[in-house]
């Protein structure tokens, strides 16, 4: 099993080191993202509310994907405690936020995952779980996850970077494709992704290499056709997500000498129309230790939200956060390239 950058003591495990590379490319100068946004008249970029409360429940994962921006894996021990979850629940109980997006690592590996889901549901919130699929087969105690998801009407969002084995396993590890297919069939069996059940199963595509996603619509049609034909699998929507040049994907770009070319691609594909719809404008991202960020990517770069008096759940001040200034760095090009990219896929035509 591949080890995390942190355990390998790779300098890229250090967020300051990553930011230094991003902001001061060692090989050539890339146009500043802030300047690009300024040219659209949208700088400083401000949040327009907090509709989505995205919680990173920990960095522990049963997979070690080559592109992972979290640097997650079995050797990561950072995990959200029940006390921090209670702080999340306090915030949710006192706000009109309707959507809670649970991510990780594999959020299901957190021992309090099911308790947390039940508490959030009791508050009447809609829950999204970013399930890596293979967790369902990783251990007998997870085999009932499809039933658990169904019981709480959870929206399941799962990565499947290709409908072929070679590309999926190249990115996510040997055997991941086969287990992912079995897990999708288990989800279908309880009604997920099936017509008229109301049980939503969305898939996520992200490129297995140094390139940008193709058209989301065209890809969704192809996924639906191929997965049905070969495996009798149904799903609702496909989200095409661009890989962010941070953490393990940044390591891949640098070690394969693709970094500058990839940044050039992102910059050349900058789409001003995507800026208005980037996810940080309506999302707040919560770290495993309760700190607050504009998005999961800024979280991994340890860029806490700008309001200095509301950087932790214990000090959550919606009034300050809902129109905060978003912290912009060079990796943000990943969210504005082409049709744009977010946890919900493309954001522009």
């Amino acid at each position, binding site marked *: 099993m591949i080890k995390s950058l942190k355990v390998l003591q790779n300098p890229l495990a250090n967020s300051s080191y990553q930011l230094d590379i991003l902001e001061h490319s060692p090989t050539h100068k890339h146009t500043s993202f802030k300047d690009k946004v300024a040219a659209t008249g949208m700088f400083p970029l401000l949040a327009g509310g907090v509709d989505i409360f995205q919680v990173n429940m920990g960095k522990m994962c049963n997979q070690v994907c080559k592109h992972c921006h979290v640097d997650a894996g079995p050797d990561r021990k950072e995990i959200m405690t029940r006390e921090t979850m209670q702080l999340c629940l306090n915030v949710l109980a006192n706000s009109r936020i309707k959507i809670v997006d649970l991510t990780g690592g594999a959020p299901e590996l957190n021992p309090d995952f099911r308790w947390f889901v039940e508490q959030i549901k009791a508050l009447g919130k809609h829950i999204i779980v970013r399930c890596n699929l293979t967790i369902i087969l990783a251990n007998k105690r997870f085999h009932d996850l499809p039933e658990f998801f169904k019981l709480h009407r959870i929206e399941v969002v799962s990565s499947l970077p290709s409908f072929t084995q070679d590309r999926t396993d190249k990115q996510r590890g040997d055997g991941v494709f086969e287990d992912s297919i079995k897990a999708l069939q288990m989800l279908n069996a309880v009604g997920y992704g099936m017509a008229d059940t109301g049980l939503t199963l969305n898939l996520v595509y992200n490129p297995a290499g140094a390139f940008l996603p193709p058209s989301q619509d*065209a890809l969704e049609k192809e996924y639906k056709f191929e997965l049905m034909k070969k495996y009798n699998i149904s799903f609702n929507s496909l989200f095409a997500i661009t890989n962010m040049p941070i953490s393990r994907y940044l390591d891949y770009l640098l070690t394969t000498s693709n970094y500058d070319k990839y940044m050039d691609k992102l910059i050349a594909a900058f789409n001003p129309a995507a800026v208005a719809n980037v996810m940080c404008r309506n999302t707040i991202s919560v770290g495993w230790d309760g700190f607050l960020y504009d998005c999961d990517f800024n979280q991994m770069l340890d860029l806490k939200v700008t309001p200095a008096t509301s950087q932790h759940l214990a000090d959550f001040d919606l009034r300050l956060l809902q129109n905060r200034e978003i912290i912009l760095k060079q990796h943000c090009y990943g969210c504005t390239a082409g049709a744009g990219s977010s946890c919900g896929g493309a954001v522009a035509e």
Partner: protein
Amino acid sequence: MADHYYNAEDLGKFGNIGDYQKEMADKFFSYYGEVFKDGALTAKEKSLIALAVAHAVQCPYCIDSYSSDAYEKGFSEAQMMEAVHVASAIKGGAVLVHGVQMMNKVKEISM
């Protein structure tokens, strides 16, 4: 002028051909964009055709572009190589079929 004919960076300057003749360049790029849109053939299918043609015309810029584009659009390595073989077969066949002309000529002049 560089001391070699091909430079990878020149691909990124393709749009600059309009500096010397804007109207024709604009028409060409507009047409080019239209050709590669989804139509009776999908944009993905067109990408694989372009990859094969790129090899047939042996254009390094086009091979660079359409190797990336076809892979990005989801073609496998094996599919892309088969497309190159199609180009190779057609080019090879185009050479070989002229052998009939050679045979015709030889027959014409021989006893």
